[in-house]
């Protein structure tokens, strides 16, 4: 096997040094009743070339872009990824390194993560960002736990327009605790209904997603004021960070903790993972933050360098009193995001965001002209909800045969939204793709 360097001679010599007769004797300490009574039943090892053909066969059974035109976002977005980002990210000095515990040998990772933290903080309008979380869903769960640690209250209000999967993950993280989640309904325009915000003083946080799961831009300023009035922190979550290339950032609107999914920034969709949990807050809360942090420091010759810092919050030092159990996070995905943001630049990102918005507006307009109802009036970024006539499921099916996936049916997530579909248009969908879709759905 090409990954195993040992020759017969090596093995013999090493066994002699160790003082055992054969490889099996290395396991003499293992009681026989723990042992495998039979050989592993695994398929015969494949050569590299056999693996290629086996995997190509599996990959061929996927309706992936660009062959298929998939008009779905809902937490996973198809954006172009520059080849420069792909190739830089494949630098094996980044790929095959561990968490940068030994700073002198990891300055590449450390500076790159420090830059990532800086770009994320600036982009979201916050003072500090961590080195990453697993994904947007776990980042939200951790943000709510953080708000509970800060406030010492045990209830959080969670908008029903937050991604349904994120809300389920929050439920799971809370399921073994005595913390409570109160769901806040949405209004007819698709935004959060502040009038039913629980008034009680035991609210740790109000968590809202913007753009929300329906694609609607929330009025963060107003929600923040209401949250703060109720003595709660404002947690702003997102699944499409590109929106903040155009919209006012959450920090400028009064957010206390901002978290979300960063997959849009240079990370392939990969059937939902790995993604990137982005996480930011202001400095006054930083000691309550979960996850790794990289800080600026100096070496003993006063030269600039970077280290992992504030480790006393972390699981390996603080044990059961840690702010989180997270250890391996999503470093390489954070690097991808930093490379992507550096490549786009501020102006480029603005232009890209505008293009996403304008294209999605084009599809909205054309669908409306074709008689499709758009139930929510709030402004949207690059996705929106459309209500199709009853029986649209068969049209959806017919479109699949033409290699178009016309949005995500919402009834499974919101039973009241029968015949409603969530559609997404990024820069990767052309006017031609959209015209084709509209032609097919026109009654």
């Amino acid at each position, binding site marked *: 096997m090409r990954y195993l360097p040992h020759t017969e001679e090596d093995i013999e010599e090493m066994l002699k040094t160790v003082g055992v007769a054969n490889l099996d004797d290395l396991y003499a300490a293992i009681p026989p009743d*723990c042992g495998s009574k039979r050989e592993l039943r695994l398929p015969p090892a494949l050569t590299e070339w056999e693996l290629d053909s086996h995997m190509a066969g599996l990959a061929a059974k996927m309706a992936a872009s660009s062959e298929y035109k998939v008009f779905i976002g809902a937490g996973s977005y198809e954006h172009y990824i520059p080849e420069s980002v792909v190739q830089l990210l494949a630098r094996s000095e980044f790929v095959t390194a561990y968490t940068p515990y030994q700073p002198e040998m990891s300055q590449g990772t450390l500076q790159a993560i420090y830059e990532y933290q800086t770009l994320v903080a600036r982009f979201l309008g916050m003072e500090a960002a961590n080195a990453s979380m697993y994904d947007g869903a776990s980042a939200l769960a951790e943000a709510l736990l953080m708000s509970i640690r800060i406030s010492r209250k045990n209830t959080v209000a969670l908008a029903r327009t937050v991604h349904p999967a994120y809300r389920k993950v929050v439920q799971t993280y809370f399921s073994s605790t005595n913390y409570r989640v109160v769901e806040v309904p949405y209004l007819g325009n698709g935004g959060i209904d502040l009038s039913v915000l629980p008034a009680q003083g035991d609210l740790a946080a109000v968590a809202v997603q913007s753009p929300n799961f329906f694609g609607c831009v929330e009025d963060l300023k107003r929600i923040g004021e209401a949250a703060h009035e109720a003595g709660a922190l404002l947690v702003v979550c997102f699944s499409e960070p590109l929106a903040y290339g155009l919209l006012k950032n959450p920090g400028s609107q009064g957010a206390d903790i901002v978290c979300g999914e960063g997959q849009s920034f240079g990370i392939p969709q990969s059937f939902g993972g790995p993604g990137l949990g982005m996480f930011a807050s202001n400095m006054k809360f930083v000691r309550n933050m979960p996850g790794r942090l990289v800080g600026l420091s100096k070496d003993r010759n006063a030269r600039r360098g970077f280290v992992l810092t504030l480790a006393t919050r972390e699981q390996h030092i603080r044990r059961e009193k840690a702010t989180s159990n997270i250890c391996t996070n999503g470093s390489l995905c954070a690097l991808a995001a930093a490379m992507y943001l550096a490549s786009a*630049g501020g102006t480029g990102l603005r232009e890209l965001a505008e293009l996403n918005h304008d294209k999605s507006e084009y599809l909205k307009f054309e669908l409306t002209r074709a008689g499709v109802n758009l139930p929510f009036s709030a402004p949207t970024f690059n996705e929106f909800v459309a209500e199709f006539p009853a029986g649209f499921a068969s049209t959806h099916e017919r479109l699949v045969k033409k290699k178009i996936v016309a949005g995500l049916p919402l009834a499974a997530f919101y039973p009241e939204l029968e015949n409603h579909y969530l559609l997404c248009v990024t820069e990767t969908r052309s006017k031609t793709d959209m015209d084709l879709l509209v032609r097919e759905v026109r009654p």
Partner: protein
Amino acid sequence: MKEFPGDTGLILNEPLLWEKGRRGRCGMSLPRRDVQPSPLPDDLIGEVPDLPELSEVEVVRHYTRLSTWNFGVDTGMYPLGSCTMKYNPKTNEKQAALPGFAGAHPFLPARLAQGALTLMYELELLLAEITGMDAVSLQPAAGAQGELTGMLILHAYHRNSGSPRTKIIVPDTAHGTNPASAALCGFYPVNVRSNEQGILAPEAIAAVMDEDVAGIMITNPNTLGLFEENIRQIAEIIHRKGGLVYCDGANMNAVMGTVHSGDSGIDVQHLNLHKTFSTPHGSGGPGSGPVCVRKDLEPFLPVPRVIRQGDEFALSDDFPFSIGKLHAFYGNFGVLVKAYSYILSMGAELKTASSYAVLNANYVKEKLKDVLHLPYDRPCMHECVFSDRFQKEWKVSTLDMVKRLMDYGFHPPTIYFPLVVPGAIMIEPTETESKEDLDLFIDAIRSIVREAESKPELITEAPKRCRVGRMDETEAARHPCLTG
């Protein structure tokens, strides 16, 4: 004598991203605009993001230079104990990047995603076979999330049987993340000390086990690199009082094909695909931490689960006892592709890989135990743990020695962990290191030990050959500067 790998070469300086570039540059090809502008209301629009603007070549040079300040498994030996820094096969990267996988939307209708679902279904079966467990969830995104998943399963199991429990036994030789994972789940960790042989004595467990203890979190092989020989008796003690046995399987690389967790009394076990199954660590993620369970705990696994319907595969949420979801979608699918590719490439050689990992660790142990203090002198599994006790005399510490190791061209082992060994030096060579490289590493350590006596300043001033000298970590924590 052979040359050590450590050397100096031309390393280039590189400023911070925002110290370079000029307003007006862009390093990305922006797509053609084929629709009219349709501006949002002014009051929603923010400032143009405050991000540096660079050309493509500036971005490329920036990260290429930064990468040369790093050390990875591809650079050299990385014997970081407990982290299993084995070689990460290149073909695995290629498979995960196949457009059918990398370009797949997670909400594709199941019939359009059969390739991914087949892969997940088969990977679950393969991991079940390797561990000897009955059912698997691939959803946890890392080892610590796998631990949390395991703890939530214990919690749900006890709640479901009508008697919720509040405590969990965590030995001093368990992984560092274990207490935090248990606490996140609301359990109070009960610490138990290992015996003078570095393993758990059944009596120590019996002494703390009662009807309020949900179970034990045991790392096997443990963080001293020793197999918990009493695991069967310990499991019996736990089971007799209604508890469950959770095994942190981060050290599975030692025992593939030799130990059947199912037969050892384990009820729940997580695996780290980024350790045992060769997926790269990526400077700290993304990883993957599948959870394997015995049949009777299967109803509690996270949803959605991949199910088989005839010749087709689908995702199902219809598991009323499930602990719920831990990931927005189905876990780190891209990492699963790599682990699956590895298992298919290795086949039954997985057992050979484990035995070479154990051979390498024992070889290093034997070759160094005359110069480094070995607190538990017995056959080890995939890693061995020394301490700096012999070097104290020269006022040279573990930290000093491993910093000096960098100058020799090796990544340091894990240090000061496990906590049961003061000044611990935890070495896990893995099976992919050749005998010549192990011999060089051994020579390097022996040379450093000699320097500790004769030229201690070489060590206390190390490293000299890295881009930066020894970093000040204390000052960084005292006055945190997290952004520039």
